[in-house]
């Protein structure tokens, strides 16, 4: 199987403000968010990063999407390094997270066109993709409505469509179903499975066990900025439910849950 994404010893730390130090009850000025994380994802698979809040999932994904630079280590996405060829990585990756917003003043149609232009997609291809994606997510009806006037779910679907204007080979999705109603969540998870069928590589981060069990082929469990376990879903589960296995691993690595 072709390796589409390889994270190699990624590290990232942040400086804490005095207030943050107090809140987190620590004297350390530097907080290590991601601590030598390595994993691989293959073509045509959905890879899940599972972990509690604050474990370093989002920071890892942001480094993969070149939004922030690793302190050390590197990641190769479809042959391009996030350190050396950031612009190439951006052309190959679709990144979606709730922190990336669309300008609410514009319509889905305009934004789709604008981001297609930035990715230098030929006009005809733009039109085909627009039609396909708008149909899948049911945006067509709202194509000329300002984003500000759309419902939360519809905004999320428009963001999703816009992040895919360049038909990226790797899709990175931070908390894909957070804040969505059951219907929209279903559309999104179905779409992720469809992307997988079309040989795309999908990386999702989540703390929802059922989502991982439902769509992921392989999973990496992140605890305290480190990969605690990584492998095929069945191998990780080892005959138990994912939830039970996760707490086994958590107790083993981090000790008490209340800590």
């Amino acid at each position, binding site marked *: 199987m072709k390796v589409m994404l390889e994270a190699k010893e990624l590290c990232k730390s942040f400086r804490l403000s005095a207030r943050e130090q107090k809140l987190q009850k620590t004297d350390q000025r530097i907080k290590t968010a991601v601590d030598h994380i390595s994993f691989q994802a293959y073509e045509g698979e959905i890879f899940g990063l599972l972990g509690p809040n604050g474990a370093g999932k989002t920071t890892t994904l942001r480094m993969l999407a070149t939004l922030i630079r690793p302190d050390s280590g590197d990641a190769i996405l479809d042959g391009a390094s996030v350190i050396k060829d950031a612009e190439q990585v951006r*052309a190959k990756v679709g990144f979606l997270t709730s*922190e*990336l917003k669309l300008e609410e*003043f514009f319509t889905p149609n305009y934004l789709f066109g604008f981001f297609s232009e930035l990715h230098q997609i030929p006009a005809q291809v733009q039109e085909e993709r627009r039609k396909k994606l708008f149909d899948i997510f049911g945006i067509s009806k709202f194509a000329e409505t300002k984003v500000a006037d759309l419902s939360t779910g519809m905004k999320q679907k428009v963001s999703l469509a816009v992040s895919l204007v360049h038909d990226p080979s790797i899709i990175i999705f931070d908390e894909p179903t957070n804040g969505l109603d059951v219907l929209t969540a279903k559309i999104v998870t179905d779409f992720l499975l469809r992307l997988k069928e079309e040989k795309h590589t999908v990386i999702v981060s989540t703390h929802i066990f059922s989502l991982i069990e439902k769509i992921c082929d392989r999973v990496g469990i992140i605890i305290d900025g480190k990969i605690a376990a990584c492998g095929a879903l069945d191998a990780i589960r080892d005959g138990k439910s994912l939830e039970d296995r996760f707490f086994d691993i958590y107790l083993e690595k981090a000790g008490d849950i209340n800590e």
Partner: protein
Amino acid sequence: MNKTIFTIMKKELARFFRDRRMVFSTILLPGLMIFVMYTFMGTAFSSQTEEQENYRFRISVADLPQSIEKIAEAQNLELAVVEPSRADEVKKQVKDQEVDLFVLFPQNFDEETAAYQVSSGEEAPNVEIYYNNASMHSQGAYDTMIQLLDNYEGTLTNKFDYNQGEKEYDMATREEEVGSVFSSLLPMLLTIFLFSGCMAVAPESIAGEKERGTIATLLITPAGRGNIAMGKIAALSLIALLSGASSAIGTILSLPKILEVGESGMNAGIYQWADYLLLTVIVLSTVLLLVTLISIISAFAKTVKEAQSYVTPLMFVVLLIGVTAMFGEGAQKEWFYYLIPVYNSVQNMVALFSFEVSGLHIVLACVSNLLYTLLGVYCLTRMFNNEKVMFSK
């Protein structure tokens, strides 16, 4: 042009021009407000002057000498003669603003002045003029009376005259006169208008996008950061230019009104097309620089509000530089002044409006402004690349 720059520019312009309220408040409103305000002020001034001109002073006089009576008649000044014994009563009327002026002459004023010798060292005959400084009309009457008496005194000992007759003594041409007014006012006003134009759009486009989280969406596309910076600056400059132009047109149209010269020729028609072209070049290079500066400051800020308060000190500096146009004798002659950002534009405008324009100075100013702008674009690009700046919480 690079396609990405163009795409970004198009988006920024669409964001602005599709928003009718923004177009109205940034482009139409400033010019309209300035025009209405200045015209109103001008009209108020001139109606006040007019009222004063038509006003008949209420002047009471005691012991009015014949000589003065004649002059007053010739000047169409009405004088009400009262008995000297009523002096205290009339003084109270002046105090109560019922009478504008009370003039008390010495009893035999004409004889005394005729007999008086300056060389004798004695006290000269004294005219007492009672007025009320709190009343505008009383002041006017006082000034009129003083002038009348001064003139009369002059005729008593007439040794020489100056500027008699209808000859033209003021050697300034009409053009130079207008030029000197324009060159002291317009550079300052234009600089302020341009700055507020930049201020209206740049923080919104840079800090606003950060605040709303839309800049991150832009930064994960393969669009080069430098291109994003240039596209934004180009579009913002264009909008700021339109906003500045609106204010400038409003001012130029209302200037004749505020300067109370009416139809007598105080208008911008004294300048040639070439002057306007040069002005456009100067203004353009200034706007590029200002937009870049404000954009850089805005990129540090987390919110539009924060950006606006960071820009305030810069606003004061620019304001002060604009005010320098009102002082000093014309534009600076030394070339190095034209390398100082903003000041170079103000000085060039002063030179332009007073018909002393120098090609070298304009080229120096524009080239240096362009270099500063490029330096600024480089800084802004570095900032777009800096996660600590772009994603600071």
